[in-house]
């Protein structure tokens, strides 16, 4: 649906790499273009018309975000992306509040950005990282999380939807459990927020991170949402203009209130405005509809793939638009280069989930990740390409 809004969706081009980044609808680019061509100005402190307009649009996006994921608009922090957001949680909040021996529950399907900052923090302060075992479908269930919790568990940090397997974790149940057991619940929403209705408050999340570019928005902008009491206790990682109330020669200083305390320097203004436009665009379509479309696309694809016994699908079950697969005897990257010859864009690799290989017997896969603008015809084109797989080396070499 809505294909006409996406200039890149030309006849014959299939974009199946939405897990990496999504295409941008014209309205998003136009909103950014208007900023650059009609009201370029910095935020804060501007008294002229263009600046007033920019300010209103920029600040207004917090409200849009808050309606989108149900949270307090004053707890919406603009970041450069999910990676930045997750690093802020770990080094801004956790570094100060965790101590040696405290346990953090992760799992091996997580993206690098929800593992490596933790590894670094354990190196610094001696927290203990524990990996919740995945089940035979590489999914992470509430039950297995619950089993790993001890009285030392201080944080559960996970992606609501993972980027290789695409399993949807039951964050509402996990959140409730965390709240009852006084465990901090840190959610990586990079692959969920773009694709389904996410509810920060009702899922008892403590932190939620996501990126604009994976949800029709621009690159270079993302969001961190945190519970107010926690944000009050979080340290900024970056100091400078826009975030201080005053500073003096005697080394005294005071920082501004949240969320601007965490936004030192000139932020990505055009990108924030573009993000707001993208969210409005998604809300107009409706997150339920988006999710349903992706699930029915996946169902159709799996049905079509049944005819090919030399294709292995690693994630049959999950209700999301991600399908990770391999063609027997062909290295994932060679397969994706082959698909490019048929104008089909996919991604090959470990998709930054480098620990997942410990759980799966493969290191690299080809990932098809779909979004609402994909169609059944896209899938047919992929299936038609597969019919040429015996000629793969004639095609790619």
């Amino acid at each position, binding site marked *: 649906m809505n294909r006409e809004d996406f200039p890149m969706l030309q006849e014959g081009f299939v974009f199946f790499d939405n897990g990496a980044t999504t295409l941008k609808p014209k309205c998003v680019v136009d909103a950014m273009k208007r900023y650059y061509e009609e009201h370029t100005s910095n935020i804060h402190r501007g008294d002229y018309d263009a600046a007033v307009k920019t300010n209103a649009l920029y600040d207004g996006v917090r409200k849009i975000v808050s309606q989108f994921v149900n949270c307090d608009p004053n707890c919406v922090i603009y970041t450069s992306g999910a990676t930045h957001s997750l690093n802020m949680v770990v080094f801004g909040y956790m570094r100060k509040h965790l101590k040696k021996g405290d346990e953090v529950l992760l799992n091996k399907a997580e993206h690098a950005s929800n593992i490596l900052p933790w590894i670094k923090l354990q190196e610094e302060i001696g927290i203990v990282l524990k990996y919740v075992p995945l089940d035979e479908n590489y999914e992470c269930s509430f039950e297995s999380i619950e089993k790993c919790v001890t009285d030392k568990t201080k944080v559960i940090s996970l992606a609501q939807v993972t980027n290789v397997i695409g399993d949807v974790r039951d964050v509402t149940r996990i959140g409730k459990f965390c709240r009852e057991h006084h465990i901090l619940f840190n959610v990586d929403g990079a692959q969920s927020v773009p694709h389904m209705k996410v509810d920060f408050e009702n899922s008892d999340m403590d932190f939620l991170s996501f990126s604009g570019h994976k949800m029709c928005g621009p690159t270079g902008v993302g969001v961190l949402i945190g519970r107010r009491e926690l944000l009050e206790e979080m340290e900024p990682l970056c100091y400078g203009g826009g975030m201080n109330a005053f500073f003096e020669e005697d080394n005294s200083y005071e920082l501004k209130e949240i969320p601007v305390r965490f936004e030192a320097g000139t932020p990505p203004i055009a990108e924030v405005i573009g993000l707001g436009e993208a969210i409005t665009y998604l809300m107009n379509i409706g997150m339920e509809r988006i999710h349903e479309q992706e699930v029915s696309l996946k169902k159709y694809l799996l049905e079509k793939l049944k005819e090919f016994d030399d294709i292995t699908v690693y994630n049959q079950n999950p209700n999301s638009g991600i399908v990770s697969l391999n063609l027997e005897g062909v*290295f*994932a*990257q*060679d397969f994706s*280069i082959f698909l490019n010859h048929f104008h089909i864009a996919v991604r*090959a*690799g*470990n998709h930054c989930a480098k620990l997942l290989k410990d759980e799966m017997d493969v*290191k*690299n896969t080809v990932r098809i990740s779909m979004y609402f603008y994909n169609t059944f015809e896209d899938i047919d084109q992929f299936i038609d390409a597969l019919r040429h797989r015996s000629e793969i*080396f*004639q095609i*790619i*070499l």
Partner: protein
Amino acid sequence: MDENLRREIILDNYQDPMNRGLIEDSSYVRERMNSESCIDDLDFMMKIEDGKIQDIRFDGEACAISTSATSIMIRKLMGLTVEEARKILENYQNMIYEKEYDSELLGELNVYDTIHKQPNRMNCALLPSVAVKKMLEKLK
């Protein structure tokens, strides 16, 4: 070069590469290669004795281009002196980067003389040459 012949050489070396599989032997130098542009992940080991390359072995997962290039490179370099090997590596890299080179020296490695037309594959083709260079550096 004839396209069918080119493809045949690459494919033969991909499907049945020379010296795949590592061995336990502390007289070898080792190098792990992860390509920047690619998801190739290959381990190399090399043994030099009396100034000559006695053995190069590799293992790991990589695409058709890096795997075949590794195999062809190993065939080419085995038994050569370090000096001869360096000359080949130099000329090979020049070929990939579209600089001047002596194709006479390269034998079957010439199958990659058009790889620059696919810029995202250049690093795949370069991988074995970078690995061998690094191992030669380690031995200095």
